[in-house]
């Protein structure tokens, strides 16, 4: 069992709204993933640079600071090691061109089952 757990990538949750972030952490930890959390793109980048076990980026789009979630995702995509991207947003019409290639789109409010399912698929791919 612990082997399976260690294989699962850690998830970095980026969301500026504290309550929503707290709930997202709960939801993703319930699915068996370890989590890191950040309230802005700057905090997120610091965490990614400091922890190489982060395999999934789960980020909202609207955030304070110099970068929004889409910019953060693009930045992470170009980095190393490879990180899977999940973009969450309350705005339904995001242009396909604005999303980084291969990113999964998660509508807000979150549906737990959809998020866990997507993460498990990603985890399986990363194996």
């Amino acid at each position, binding site marked *: 069992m612990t082997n399976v757990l260690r294989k699962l990538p850690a998830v970095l949750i980026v969301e500026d709204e*504290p309550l*929503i*972030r*707290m709930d997202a952490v*709960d*939801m993703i930890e319930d699915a068996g993933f370890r989590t890191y959390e950040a309230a802005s793109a700057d905090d997120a980048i610091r965490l990614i640079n400091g922890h190489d076990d982060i395999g999934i980026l789960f980020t909202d789009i609207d955030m304070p600071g110099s970068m929004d979630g889409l910019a953060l995702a693009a930045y992470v995509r170009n980095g190393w090691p490879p990180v899977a991207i999940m973009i969450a947003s*309350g705005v339904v019409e995001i242009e396909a061109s604005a999303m980084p290639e291969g990113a999964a789109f998660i509508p*807000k*409010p*979150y549906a737990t089952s959809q998020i866990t399912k997507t993460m498990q698929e990603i985890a399986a791919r990363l194996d």
Partner: protein
Amino acid sequence: MSDQLPQPGVEAEASVDISRAVAILAPRGRDAAVAAQLLAKDNIAALPVGDLDQLAAMVGQHVGAVLVTEEALASSDIGALRHAIEAQPKWSDVPFIVLANGALRTRSDRAGQQMDALRNAVLLSRPLHVEELVRSVRSALTARGRQHEARKQLEELELRERQLYESEAKFHAITDSVDHMIWSTLPDGYHDYYNSRWYEFTGVPEGSTDGSAWNGMFHAGDQKKAWALWQHCLTTGETYEVEYRLRHRSGDYRWVLGRARPVRDESGTIVRWYGSCTDIHEIKMAEQQRQLMLGEMNHRVKNTLAMVNVMVSQTLRQADNLRDAQESIQSRIGMMAQAHDRLINAAWSETHISEVVEAALVPHRSGEGRFAITGADLPIGSKQALALTMALHELSTNASKYGALSVQGGTVSIAWAVDGETELFNFTWTESGGPTVTEPTRRGFGSRMIKQALPGYFTGQAELSYDPDGLKFKLQAPLAGLIH
């Protein structure tokens, strides 16, 4: 044109058309009667008169022609007759046929002058030749007939001119009275008319936008589009309709709606375009505002739903049974709804801490003075207000079930202030007089929310201590964290 009024001394039959009759002034003997008979044979109506004044009256009524003897002309003062002749309207030139005085060998100067005064006169010698008389009279009456025709045509023209003038006046009255700008062009699009509203709006000199100079009054971003559409409509005759920004006399551009339609002649050819510009700036700005607000609203609603989602999800995690879950969820959502009312009143910008605290405690007030509240009237941002409301809701619900508010005599002390030196904002909730407090084994949503999420909204720190005397909550944050 028969004259119905009876004249003194004239026995005119009611049915005689005076404009086609001949007045006869030949007082000597049977001259008048004879002449009348001769003319009657040729179906010409005769109107004998007794003197020059009566003749003058006839002239005034546009009699067809006049037959007068030379001696009758000389018989008295010709003044009234001369006056009547001169007073004729422009079209009228009454013909006189003068019967020469056969008794004299030469004509006196005076007689000659009198004849000249008649203006339009022929002289027939006596003894009379029937044919000469009749033909002269006929000729005179024919000429007179043509004068009447000319008069009719002239009056018709004058009527048309008056109607045209009135029509133009009406057009200008209408186009200058309406609130819209009105313009008109030739079939090729050459603008040659603008109403006064156009000049009021644009402030340009009259005539300066004739031709195609109007395009320069449009905003640079709209010029091409409008020009292309105008050219297209000129060719096809379709109704022209386009929104664009027009330069107002103040220098600002305002949104207007331009429209035009062609007017065609009987063969279907376009002879003119008539158009208008309606100022729609206010409407357009309102529409843009509305869209912005709708977008804002959608955003906020989505956010609220996300929060509710968290409430429900977190409650279900920790509830022992569905009934407890329902109660908790409804209580929390109710709290959020109420917090929203306050935020709307403050236009979603900011409110005051005292208001937030008072509102959160309303469901728990029993009139027994269990709450002691002290703190300055500090402003607080909308997100922070909502978070604080949620925290207070959790604290008071918990106090009612298990803490100081669950027993008689228990009290809650709420206080907040800004430390003058550190510029730190401190908020405390202290319970006392309740049952002995023990740390719960399981962390409920309330404590999690307060310890983990709440500080984030204020970029500060929160503490929850399960002091045996009473639960204590403390929030500390930089003053800037209250509003951002």
